[in-house]
């Protein structure tokens, strides 16, 4: 029983479901209360202690069905509890003796599917099948498990038969060998499906968060917006705590005295002043022309995933003219909003000068010393007038300007890049080309603004 639960929890963990030790102990207790006979009852009960959000319950349900489909096909089968019980060891003993090894042929001929599965499961354990990572390893593990089960003896028998000229027996044995190989392969492939459904995803996610966003492929968008959600969640939990702490102010003497009048003026209860938190206002201006579109897309997604701690975000997108896209992101699904932004404002040749003028027009008096302006773009203005004077007035009105550029520093100022002329007006200018960079930049911004 312990074995089967450990195995199952291992699979849950590899499917991106965090199960702590105390939860697995709970699961053990649950099983000892419920028993193994009723499958739907077992599924219900285990889900209480192992899966703790709606999403986790879905994963759990899928894993449970797959797992029990494969490994323990029928709970009411009388032979089955053997795998779970202490008798396990006994079976292991048999395996070690020649008895088991020699009888691969007999095992195949005489026994039912269940004992064949049992034998395979045992051999798989000895071959460390739980370490399998990629589907390319299936061949190797098939061989290993076959060996464990006694392939050598079978091969010898085949050799013997062919030397003795018993062609019929040779054919028969070869058939058995082939069938067994298929069985084992199927078994392993199922195991791979169960165990590695997530490791591949993990690798992919890691790679994607490091990759340059300009190279991102459409097929990866879905995974990437998932990564952004994760990153945003992390940042929210880090920064919301700090914010709450900074809201408490000094001791309010007057209110304290008033509150304690009922105790004859003896000060029992304290009343604290509330500091007024100046909520940071953020204005983001994103270049959505071809070259930078991807980065902007993900940056906008990121900003709008943070509404919980950044309630005042206004976003603008531009290529040759700037337009406000805040409403798009607030009222629509974030993926659709991103796509529409590109459709509405993308295309056309980039003109930074015009974008700055437009931005100033939109903001007018809505920009003050609490506002952080973030500009994201490659600063390639197609030799148009960059209008640094407008950027300067924006800088004077706002708290600060951050410039995020997806191009590496070495090419800033080359060709039509006006980056070097913008830098003096920005309190910070950074290279920002991957999701990982984005996370760091946003984290930095939150740290200094709240």
């Amino acid at each position, binding site marked *: 029983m312990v074995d089967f639960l450990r195995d199952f929890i291992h699979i849950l963990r590899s499917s991106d479901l965090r199960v702590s030790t*105390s*939860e697995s102990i709970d699961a053990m207790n*649950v099983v000892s209360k419920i028993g193994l*006979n009723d499958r739907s009852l077992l599924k*219900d009960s285990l889900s209480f*202690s192992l899966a703790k959000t709606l999403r986790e319950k879905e994963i759990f349900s899928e894993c449970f069905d797959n797992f029990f489909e494969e490994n323990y096909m029928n709970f009411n089968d009388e032979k089955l509890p053997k795998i779970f019980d202490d008798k396990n060891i006994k079976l292991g003993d048999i395996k070690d003796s020649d008895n088991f090894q020699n009888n691969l042929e007999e095992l195949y001929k005489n026994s039912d599917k269940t004992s064949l599965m049992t034998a395979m499961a045992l051999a798989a354990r000895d071959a460390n099948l739980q370490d399998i990572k990629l589907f390319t390893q299936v061949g190797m593990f098939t061989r290993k498990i076959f060996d464990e089960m006694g392939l050598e003896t079978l091969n010898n028998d085949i050799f013997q038969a062919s030397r003795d000229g018993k062609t019929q027996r040779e054919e028969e044995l070869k058939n058995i060998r082939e069938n067994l190989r298929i069985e084992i392969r199927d078994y392993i492939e199922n195991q791979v499906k169960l165990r590695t459904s997530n490791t591949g995803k993990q690798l992919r996610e890691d790679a994607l968060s490091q990759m340059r966003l300009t190279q991102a492929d459409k097929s990866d968008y879905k995974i990437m917006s998932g990564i952004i959600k994760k990153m945003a969640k992390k940042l929210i939990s880090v920064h919301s705590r700090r914010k709450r702490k900074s809201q408490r102010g000094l001791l309010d003497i007057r209110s304290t005295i008033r509150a304690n009048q009922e105790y004859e003026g003896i000060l029992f209860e304290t009343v604290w002043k509330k500091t007024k938190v100046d909520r940071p206002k953020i204005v983001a201006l994103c270049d959505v022309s071809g070259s930078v579109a991807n980065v902007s897309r993900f940056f906008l997604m990121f900003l709008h995933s943070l509404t919980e701690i950044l309630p005042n975000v206004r976003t603008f997108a531009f290529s040759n003219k700037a337009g406000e896209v805040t409403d798009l992101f607030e009222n629509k699904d974030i993926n659709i909003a991103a796509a529409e932004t590109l459709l509405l404002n993308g295309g056309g040749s980039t003109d930074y000068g015009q974008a700055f003028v437009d931005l100033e027009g939109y903001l007018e008096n809505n920009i003050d010393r609490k506002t952080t302006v973030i500009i994201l773009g490659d600063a390639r203005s197609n030799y148009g007038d960059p209008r640094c004077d407008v950027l300067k007035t924006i800088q004077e009105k706002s708290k600060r300007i951050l410039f995020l550029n997806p191009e590496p520093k070495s090419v800033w100022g080359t060709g039509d890049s006006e980056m070097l002329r913008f830098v003096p007006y920005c309190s910070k200018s950074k290279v920002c080309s991957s999701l990982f960079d984005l996370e760091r930049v946003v984290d930095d911004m939150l740290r200094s603004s709240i």
Partner: protein
Amino acid sequence: MSNNKTSSDVSAKDLIENIQSNFEKQGYICNTHIATAIFLSQSLGKPILVEGPPGVGKTELAKATAEWMEKPLIRLQCYEGLDEAKALYEWKYGKQLLYTQVLKDKLNQIVSKSDSLESSIDNLNNFDDIFFSEKFLEPRPLLKAIESENGSVLLIDEIDKSDDEFEAFLLEILSDYQVSIPEIGTIKGKVKPIVFLTSNNTREIGDALKRRCLHLYIPFPDPFLEEKIISSRVPEIDENLKKQLVSFVQGLRSLDLKKLPSVSETIDWARSLVLLNIKTLEPDLARETLNILLKFQTDIDVSDPEIDNLIEQSKK
């Protein structure tokens, strides 16, 4: 061993069915999933965290459990800014103060008896202990639940509305069922209370808290269960109308609404239809009474064009 298992298995299943039928007697209709959760929480002594959309009977579940077990229900409603003093215990400052005033003469006597400063301080020290004893302790819901002699059902409602700090503070109570009061010591309950926590998921609950609880998710009921609930709560309803009404509400839930109609709203609607003495559902009638089910004008606007369709379907 396999034989043992089957016997314990049968009894577990029976117990779960027993819980279910007992709940039914209280008028709380639930499926085996919910009953299993109650059974496990009882036999493992673990709190249950109940999540689900508003109005599916999370709080009702705790009430039904309390009634079934004949134990007092102690309820703690969470809100932002809830702190120890309101949840756990508080010193009765006023009473302490009053007592020192009333006992002034007595204190004078005690102090005057002693000849040196040191001994009078010693004497006063004894009083200190009296003033910080359980007599001056005002137990709040959590302490009440732990202290209760015959056990109790503790309902910590809408835990997601409280602060992170309060959640962390609950950890000691939920895992050990004990409370530390610096002046008195650790108070440990004789009987473990049965604890329910409910959450509407306005905020993600911390992992540490989740780890200590069994997690039960109650979704909207399926048509069969909802019909059962309606006939239990509104017994006088016409059989045919009940079927129509449930199918209509289930249809509404599939629309893209701001707030989906909950079970409690279905019950309200059923009651009002019975009051209006109605036997079959008609589109006009549904439009007029829709504000019982839907609480946002935008939702009513969204569902308006679908009503004829839904009624048509529900008549099948």
